[in-house]
């Protein structure tokens, strides 16, 4: 007979929120602590996944079927050489779609003949096959690529970094550079090459011109080859032996897309570290909420006593403070998720990446705040519920 009805969930929420309404600044500050922690974690995860999405997009565009072969070192430690016929032999491998090579040429390139010889600008001069651009997936920024005619004459195409260092932004009909002691006409400038970044710092001349004018020995120093996507591993296994049948161990084979992916993997360790820092911030935020709740219980002893005199059971007082603590943390959680998404979007857009925030991170972040709210509120709530009503009223 001595039994009251249950409070509706709405009344439980209203009562839990009542303590927050009257102290907006304190609510804001303690929620801010949680928000910063959650925002840091969401931001780290979001930026990492956005960067991954960008890598995936790049790899989809560039393809992962490019393999390179380069001479390594001989058994005695001297620099090895690839046979002149290497490209032709590589092309004969069944699944190979295309192959092209470059060869390092002795000589330097200068803006004109008055530059002191020591200021080489670290630009490598390379002889290039005509199929190089198609095979490496490199685009032209301006001008044109070498053709059968220009490859035999003093014509040069600059990588983007090389053009920058020579101070060349545009191509006129009479733009020339001083290369290996001769004037070479500039015919084109390349875009940045994602899979063959070594081309960015190179000056590329035709194979014939290199041999005829620059004394190039005709040995390729790097082979680029595109393969049927499904047979990349098989081709990789035979590439060294094909490129140099006499000394397959002197050939270094690599897959440039692996290097891009590996760079992303090293980012993962960094992401883990940042995530840990975010977790620490979240923990500190949780301590802030606990602190706020403890003070709140101390300050509101009279309210607790009044509620007990109005018929509140101990567990209803406990629930009120638990709900209040979770609302406090939940507010921080919502703010943190929004802030984290905003940070991710701002950073990703500034880098030209696609924005990607995984749903599990949002759900996890919000779930974490609710558990933090429960943990932080537990002790104050239990204390509030165990306060004797007479003592609570007497404190007023």
């Amino acid at each position: 007979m001595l039994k009251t009805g249950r409070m509706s969930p709405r009344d439980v929420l209203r009562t839990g929120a009542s303590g927050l309404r009257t102290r907006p600044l304190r609510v804001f500050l303690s929620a801010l602590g949680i928000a910063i922690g959650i925002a840091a974690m969401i931001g780290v995860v979001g930026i990492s996944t956005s960067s991954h999405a960008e890598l995936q997009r790049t790899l989809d565009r560039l393809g992962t079927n490019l393999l390179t072969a380069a001479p390594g070192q001989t058994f005695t430690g001297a620099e090895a050489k690839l046979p002149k016929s290497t490209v032709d032999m590589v092309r004969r491998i069944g699944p190979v779609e295309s192959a092209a090579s470059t060869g390092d040429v002795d000589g330097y390139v200068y803006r004109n003949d008055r530059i002191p010889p020591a200021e080489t600008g670290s630009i490598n001069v390379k002889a290039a096959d005509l199929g190089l651009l198609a095979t490496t997936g490199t685009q032209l920024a301006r001008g044109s690529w070498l053709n059968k005619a220009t490859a035999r004459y003093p014509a040069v195409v600059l990588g983007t970094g090389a053009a920058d260092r020579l101070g060349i932004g545009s191509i006129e009909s009479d733009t020339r550079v001083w290369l290996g002691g001769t004037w070479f006409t500039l015919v084109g400038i390349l875009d940045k090459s994602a899979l063959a970044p070594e081309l960015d710092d190179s000056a590329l001349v035709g194979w014939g011109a290199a041999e005829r004018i620059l004394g190039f020995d005709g040995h390729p120093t790097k082979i680029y080859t595109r393969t049927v996507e499904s047979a990349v591993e098989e081709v990789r296994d035979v590439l060294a032996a094909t490129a140099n049948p006499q000394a397959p161990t002197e050939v270094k084979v690599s897959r440039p897309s692996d290097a891009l992916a590996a760079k992303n993997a090293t980012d993962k360790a960094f992401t883990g570290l940042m995530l840990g820092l975010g977790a620490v911030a979240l923990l500190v935020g949780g301590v802030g909420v606990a602190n706020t709740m403890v003070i709140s219980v101390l300050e509101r002893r009279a309210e607790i006593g009044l509620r007990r005199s109005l018929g509140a059971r101990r567990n209803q007082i406990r629930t009120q403070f638990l709900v209040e603590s979770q609302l406090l943390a939940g507010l921080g959680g919502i703010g943190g998720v929004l802030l984290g998404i905003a940070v991710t979007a701002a950073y990703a857009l500034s880098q030209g990446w696609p924005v990607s925030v995984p749903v599990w991170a949002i759900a996890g972040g919000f779930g974490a705040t609710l558990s933090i709210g429960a943990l932080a509120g537990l002790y104050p709530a239990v204390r509030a519920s165990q306060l004797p009503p007479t003592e609570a009223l007497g404190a007023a």
Partner: protein
Amino acid sequence: MNRPVVRLDNVTRSYGETTALAGVSLTFHRGELAAIVGPSGSGKSTMLNLIGTLDRPTSGTVEIDGHDIATLGDQELSALRAMTIGFVFQQFHLAAGLSALDNVAEGLLYTGTPLAERRRAARSALERVDLARRIYHRPNELSGGERQRVAIARALVGSPRLLLADEPTGALDSRSGDTVMALLRALHADGTTVVIITHDREVAASLPRQVQVRDGRIVHDSSRDRVPAC
């Protein structure tokens, strides 16, 4: 008809070495209007806490509305407070952020009554204390006397059998105090049992029954010497 609303039987309450209440026996019947009067430290606040079931006696029996509170757990005791007892405090204890209406409606919160119904009951309780035109005012927009009337409305919104008022005029000027006392008398006239705890002899003298407390004992109960005046 006269079942006692409050029955204390040989009640003692000690805090460690000190005895706040020593073997008090006292009965309030339904429909009474009484004062418990005594100086501070006399034990009258302890009596209020025991009668209000906010505290339990060290020994002896406390019966409220026929329930021996020693046999009740937290849940039943809370239900007893929610449905049977209304409290009025010297300091009002109103929530600053809530309107008068919602403050009064809080009086029914723990009975499980839905919000709309709580507000309806609160509105009529505020009419009973003559504050119908102030229902959307917040406590800081009300005078002291008005605040105490809001607190009284909160105490009576659940139609309790027993209204316990602890120094209801203690924080008020004499004029507001008179209004509050008149209101309590009117509630008594409507049938509510009203017990007022006060140190003010004048207030006590204006009530039909006075129980005088000193040093934890009842030194005088006007109902026991109902000898016709000379």
